[in-house]
């Protein structure tokens, strides 16, 4: 009896612990994957307005960053600018959303990395919350129909970004039947 009981009670606990320690507590699966991306409008640092709705038909990379997010945001900044320069003529847009930052620090950051892609602040954090952002940096890759195809938490690498973009560019355009769904997400 005892020979069976002890393993019977210990083994499930060990399995549970093993599972718990192997999974990354910082990883939170996003419920937004494959769902229409929440729409947003930015007033960019260069004064222009930008609306996500206006970018339909393009692959959009939405990156949430802050100047205080060191080192991850500093590591990925050249990657984002590089992707923008490589793909901007192929219907790809990189959009930077600056969160919980001061305008001065944000501008210095953009200057330091010579950002040329559109960037704007997220006053009140509404866009970040809409995208379920829980740690900065986070990067969302949206397909041409405006669905969130991929979410990357932490500094995004050139490999991940180009693989995602190339994959979405190759994907055959789907009939625009989720247009209404997309607008409901606004």
């Amino acid at each position: 009896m005892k020979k069976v009981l002890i393993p019977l009670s210990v083994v499930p606990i060990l399995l549970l612990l093993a599972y718990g320690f192997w999974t990354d507590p910082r990883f939170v699966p996003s419920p937004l994957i494959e769902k229409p991306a929440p729409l947003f409008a930015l007033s960019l640092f260069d004064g222009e307005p930008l609306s996500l709705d206006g970018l339909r038909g393009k692959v959009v990379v939405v990156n949430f960053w802050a100047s205080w997010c060191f080192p991850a945001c500093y590591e990925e900044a050249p990657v984002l600018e590089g992707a923008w320069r490589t793909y901007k003529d192929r219907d790809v847009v990189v959009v930077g959303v600056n969160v919980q930052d001061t305008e001065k620090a944000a501008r210095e950051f953009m200057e330091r990395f010579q950002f040329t892609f559109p960037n704007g602040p997220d006053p009140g954090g509404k866009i970040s919350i809409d995208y379920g952002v829980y740690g900065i940096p986070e990067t969302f890759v949206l397909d041409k129909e405006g669905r969130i195809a991929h979410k990357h938490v932490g500094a995004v690498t050139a490999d991940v970004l180009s693989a995602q973009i190339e994959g979405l560019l190759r994907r055959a355009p789907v009939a625009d039947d989720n247009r209404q769904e997309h607008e409901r997400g606004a």
Partner: protein
Amino acid sequence: MGRRGRELDCNGSIRTHRGSRLILALVVLSMVVVLPLGASSTEEQVRQLAAELRCPVCQGLSVADSPSKMANQMKDLIRERLEAGESPEAVKAYFVERYGEWILLAPKKEGFNLLVWVFPFLGLAGGAVVLFVVIRRWQKRPQAAPASVDSAYLEKVRREMAQDQS
């Protein structure tokens, strides 16, 4: 000896039974009384909702308890949505839709999650059963016969102890 032990055991179990009933009654009472009492002002609703939501940038803190900027922005958003006429349930559903159930500090009481709510009580009941069985077994075990001691030797020990004390 065995008889007395059983009586004691019996009293003890009755007492704990009463105790658990009292606790259960208190828990149910607090649920019944506290839940409808809150939800009066918007600010109270904001605080209640914020207490149920996990602060995304913290470790195991609720939005209500966190002084972080993110938590404050979430509180502002909750207030804004409530003032716009949304029900607290709708606001909560919005956060779940964006962050997943992860954002709720207490998992929903449904499906697989019910295990979390049921397991502690199952564990308590299981422990009680094990205790009961073990105690029964102890009682049934035949008492060891007193070791036979040479009466002269015993007398000698008693005498020496009496000498020590004086």
